[in-house]
């Protein structure tokens, strides 16, 4: 058919385009783990139980340092998400405190100089662990723990990266690379790209890194049974890593299920429309030599 040559050309172009988009790496990284996700693929959906467990992990472990600035508590009851009821969300929200704003005298702090706080409402954004970046740095060895709302989109590998990173502290137990020596306040993670390595772990001539990953200011968090899951699931490191990565995947893309559902309907429609238009095209041109 006449379309084959152009189609092949387009495929080659697309392949070249795809190859051109593969990014180069800044350091050597261990290949990411791929545990498999319920939301992968064109018909993927979020595992609600996993989302709820993941929220629990975020709340009890991560929220001490990491904000979720683009989520509000009411999102927890939105369709396509963890599926908490509005009543449950009121309770969950009220467990956190947010700045209350000025009192009648105009003061935003109490007698001790602490910021006036109030229980959060469902309409509030998730409570921030630190009021500003300087406070975050002061509490975290000079590093600002990044906001997590878009983390599943802001790193190559998305949920695979998050899973690998948070469970990666526990890779190769007892086999921490000797070249690292003592690194007070910093922790080695073979999946982490943006930290540094001491010179002892780099080739003296070329400066290239000799081991995977780099040092991060974040200590390992997901020790076994760190969280006691409300639904009774055993809280192994892998389980918690999987659940929190699922939760963060939802946080970065809350409309994913609606998007894929609509995509299916649109593709069917376009397929049918294309067939009709093709037949109409052939009928119109039937009497013309071309």
């Amino acid at each position, binding site marked *: 058919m006449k379309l084959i040559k152009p189609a092949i050309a387009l495929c080659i172009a697309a392949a070249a385009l795809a190859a051109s988009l593969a990014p180069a790496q800044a350091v050597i990284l261990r290949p990411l783990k791929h545990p498999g996700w319920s939301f992968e693929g064109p018909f993927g959906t979020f595992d609600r139980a996993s989302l709820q467990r993941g929220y629990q992990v975020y709340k009890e472990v991560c929220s001490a340092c990491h904000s979720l600035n683009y989520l*509000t508590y009411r999102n927890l009851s939105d369709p396509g998400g963890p599926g908490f009821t509005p009543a449950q969300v009121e309770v969950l929200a009220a467990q956190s405190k947010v700045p209350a704003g000025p009192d009648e005298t105009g003061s935003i702090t109490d007698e001790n100089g602490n910021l006036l706080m109030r229980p959060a409402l469902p*309409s509030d954004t998730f409570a921030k662990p630190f009021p500003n970046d300087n406070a975050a740095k002061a509490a975290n060895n000079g590093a600002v723990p990044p906001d997590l709302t878009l983390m599943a989109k802001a790193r190559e590998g998305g949920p695979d990266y998050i899973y690998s990173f948070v469970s990666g502290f526990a890779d190769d137990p007892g086999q921490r690379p000797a070249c690292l020596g003592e690194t007070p306040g910093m922790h080695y993670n073979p999946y982490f790209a943006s930290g540094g390595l001491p010179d002892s772990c780099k080739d003296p001539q070329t400066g290239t890194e000799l081991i995977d990953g780099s040092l991060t200011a974040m200590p390992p968090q997901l020790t076994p049974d760190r969280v006691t899951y409300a639904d009774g699931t055993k809280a192994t490191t892998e389980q918690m890593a999987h659940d929190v990565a699922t939760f963060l995947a939802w946080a970065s893309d809350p409309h994913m299920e609606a998007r894929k559902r609509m995509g299916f309907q649109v593709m069917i*429609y376009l397929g049918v429309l294309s067939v009709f238009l093709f037949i109409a095209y052939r009928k119109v041109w039937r009497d013309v030599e071309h």
Partner: protein
Amino acid sequence: MVAEHASEPTRRDFLYIATGALAAAGAVAVAWPLIDQMNPSADVLALSTLKVDLSPVALGQQITVMWRSKPVFVRHRTPKEIQEAEAINWKAMRDPQSDESRLVSFNGALQKEWLILIGICTHLGCIPLKTDQGYLCPCHGSRYDLSGRIVAGPAPLDLEVPPYKFLSATQIQIG
């Protein structure tokens, strides 16, 4: 060109009509999100209800809260004010409404001391001032009674009562 096909217009026409209908249906399906995006967004809808604590509002006092971007008066009426509001001949008013019909019950009992009104004058939208006789709008002199009903001036309607309910004796939810 197509003289020999004049005898079979129906099959070809059906195809064109079907294709056209399919395309039109697609156009409508595409148009809906483009229109719906202007409707209030999720964050605006989330603020469409407001809980108000009544305990700080002393007898005879009024607080103003913002609800759906509008000022709402929460007035704690004294027994004398309630009496005056009930005594007026409301049937002869411009916008006849009984005081009772502008109040809400809690556990079967009508909460007469709590008057909840949207603080927007029904004339041209200014915010009326609280007076001992009810409300006075400074813009064009509309006067409302102790139930928020229009008694004098150019405003055509009584002050609007928003939907609200009592969650407890000291807490209401507006909207």
